[in-house]
């Protein structure tokens, strides 16, 4: 509808990242540069992922949505996990929590920029007013939660003995986009209802990660004792 609308949406979409970075105490532990490396890492993994997907799914231009190929495609997100793990283990410094938060932040920021910036630039500036752009911006904050919890989980998976507890939640995070698509198609959720679902889903994963994190925390302390 107007440029002003674009600014709003832009802010809505990317402000949370700055806020988290600025005010959740991360900036004391690591610098902005770490986040940039995380974003770079994200971009590299995305590149690798695209290459691998290209080999496995030659005819990619199908319109229809069918469960099995989508599921397989989203399984490519495991590579994100690997990428994240590599990123955190040897590119980031500092305590575990710092690493996975920074990794998650950088990764999430890069993700939403890749997905949403262009979309917003094109759509939001159009004259017609639709709520769609606002919804996509809100989406980005939901994604932030999911990605941070994903980072935390990938961090924990290598370090905790009870992998069986971590891996399902990790799977939840990894297959989040797949879940969104199936839900969108099967229940034909659109607009605000889809947004609500995504928030619910990300909050659930966040809580679970926290629970798992806490469980992990007790185990490591027990180990230290």
């Amino acid at each position: 509808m107007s440029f002003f609308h674009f600014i709003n949406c832009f802010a809505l979409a990317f402000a949370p990242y700055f806020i988290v970075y600025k005010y959740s105490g991360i900036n004391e532990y690591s610098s902005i540069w770490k986040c940039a490396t995380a974003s770079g890492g994200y971009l590299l993994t995305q590149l690798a992922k695209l290459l691998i997907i290209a080999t496995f799914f030659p005819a990619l231009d199908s319109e229809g949505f069918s469960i099995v190929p989508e599921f397989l495609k989203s399984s490519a997100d495991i590579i994100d996990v690997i990428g994240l793990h590599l990123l955190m283990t040897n590119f980031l410094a500092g305590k575990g929590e710092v690493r996975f938060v920074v990794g998650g932040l950088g990764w999430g920021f890069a993700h939403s920029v890749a997905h949403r910036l262009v979309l917003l630039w094109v759509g939001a500036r159009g004259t017609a007013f639709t709520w769609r752009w606002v919804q996509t911006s809100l989406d980005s904050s939901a994604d932030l939660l999911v990605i941070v919890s994903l980072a935390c989980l990938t961090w924990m998976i290598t370090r905790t003995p009870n992998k069986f507890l971590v891996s399902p939640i990790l799977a939840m995070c990894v297959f989040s986009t797949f879940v969104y698509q199936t839900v969108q198609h099967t229940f034909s959720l659109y607009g605000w209802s889809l947004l609500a679902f995504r928030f619910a889903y990300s909050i659930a994963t966040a809580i679970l990660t926290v629970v798992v994190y806490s469980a992990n925390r007790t185990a490591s302390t027990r180990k230290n004792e």
Partner: protein
Amino acid sequence: ETEFHAYRLHQYEISGNIYGCKNYRVSYEAVSLGARTLRRTMVTTWRDLLTTDVDDMWALSTGAVLIFIPDNLDELNDIDRKAFIDLEAKLLSAKTDLAVYVAPFNDDAVSILHDVNTRSEKAPTALQHLLQSLSGNTISITSSDQSPELPPSYKPLNIVGRLSSGDRAAPTIAFVAHYDTQSAVPGVSPGADSNGSGIVALLELLAVLSKFYDSPSTRPPYNILFIWTAAGKLNYQGTRHWIDEYQKGFDSADYAKSGLSRKGFSDDRVDLAICIEAIGRKTGGFFMHAGKTPSENSVAAQLLRRLKYFSSISPKKNIELVTKKISLTTVSAWEHEKFNIKRMPAITLSTLPSPSDPARNSILDLPSALDEDELIDNIRLIGEAVLGYILDLPESGPSSDSRVKSEATMLSKDAVDKQRVHHFIRQFASRPRPVGDQRATESITSNLASVAAGYGNVFKSAVTITDAKAFGVTQNRLVAERVKPAVFELVIAAGVFTYLSAFYYIATHSQNTIEGTVAAIRKSIF
């Protein structure tokens, strides 16, 4: 936002005076009926438009009007039908600079109308009004203007089919029918009867009579011309052009292109030109319109007597002669007047009692309104009469002797074929083909030529439109976007701010809340 198809009000200019709406660009905010429409698009349903007085609206200089009409015009009940006809009359008489569009009433229309109406209502309380003015979205309608203007070099074609009797001196009978359509909204009116039926009648007569011209023994001593004239609704340009060419001996270049020898049929002596218009409705007979009552042994009089005789037999029909004095200045009422002006004998056969009959150029003139059996009977009646004339059969039946009885009609029962008529109607009388729509005109002329070529030999000639002007853009794609008022942006900004501040609040306390929860969980669970 939604995108839909809309059809523009007619626009043409005949001998100076302009009719219909002048321009076609629309990019204004939609507003409901009654509100100020300067630089606005007034959106209304056809019923509202009828009830309010809109004359002053037409006078405005810029802006647009969007009228929603029922999308299935076939199932209008009678009252609506009469109302719709009034609407048409109103639209026909309108002369305005606004871009007037008509669109079928579907669910997009509903939502647009709803928004527009709510927008323009006075909110009961001040707060609601404030709220309304803040967040109520306004609809802006813009036209995509893809279809181009009419190129100046655009000349619609006259299609002339000819069945020749072999010897040059034979007299000629000409069947004439204009093939274009016109109505208040040309883009939406297929013009099935006002002159779809004319085109079909000529095609069917060509098919039936061509059978006689195959073998020399059954070839009547008459040439027969079938002329589908262009731009008939624009004061019969095609007819005038053909007559000029005919009388001038065709030295115009267009004919050379059409591969016809220069002489063409300029030496054909046209005994009678029979213009056919609108004979597809169930009116139990039709009228013969002529400049003046034809003299006793003129061809027209003979034809009338034969028509009366044949119509007195099997399917009871009544044929009446209607005479109307021809005015040289104003627009010709009937096609035959163009012939009479140039002192050529001609008549028009039509079920329309008068030229200004509302059914003539009406949007409701749909293929479903046609009565195929009535059309077939009319075609067979005209065919019998003309055959009787050119074969010089005794006028009142094969034998006048009282003692002698025999069958009267020459054409066998299935000569006029029901399936062929149905095919012609579906192909030539069911799609709007205003002279303004170049693509539709070219499509129908090429198809008409292919039929005429099948049954006889065909000639085409490009018609130069004189002292009249047709305008293109008969239809357009309109895009209706829901636009929030600019102030609404501030609202959004506030929303964003609140959200971010909440986020800030969460982020700052996230660390300790998470640790707290972790610790709580550890204690509680493990």
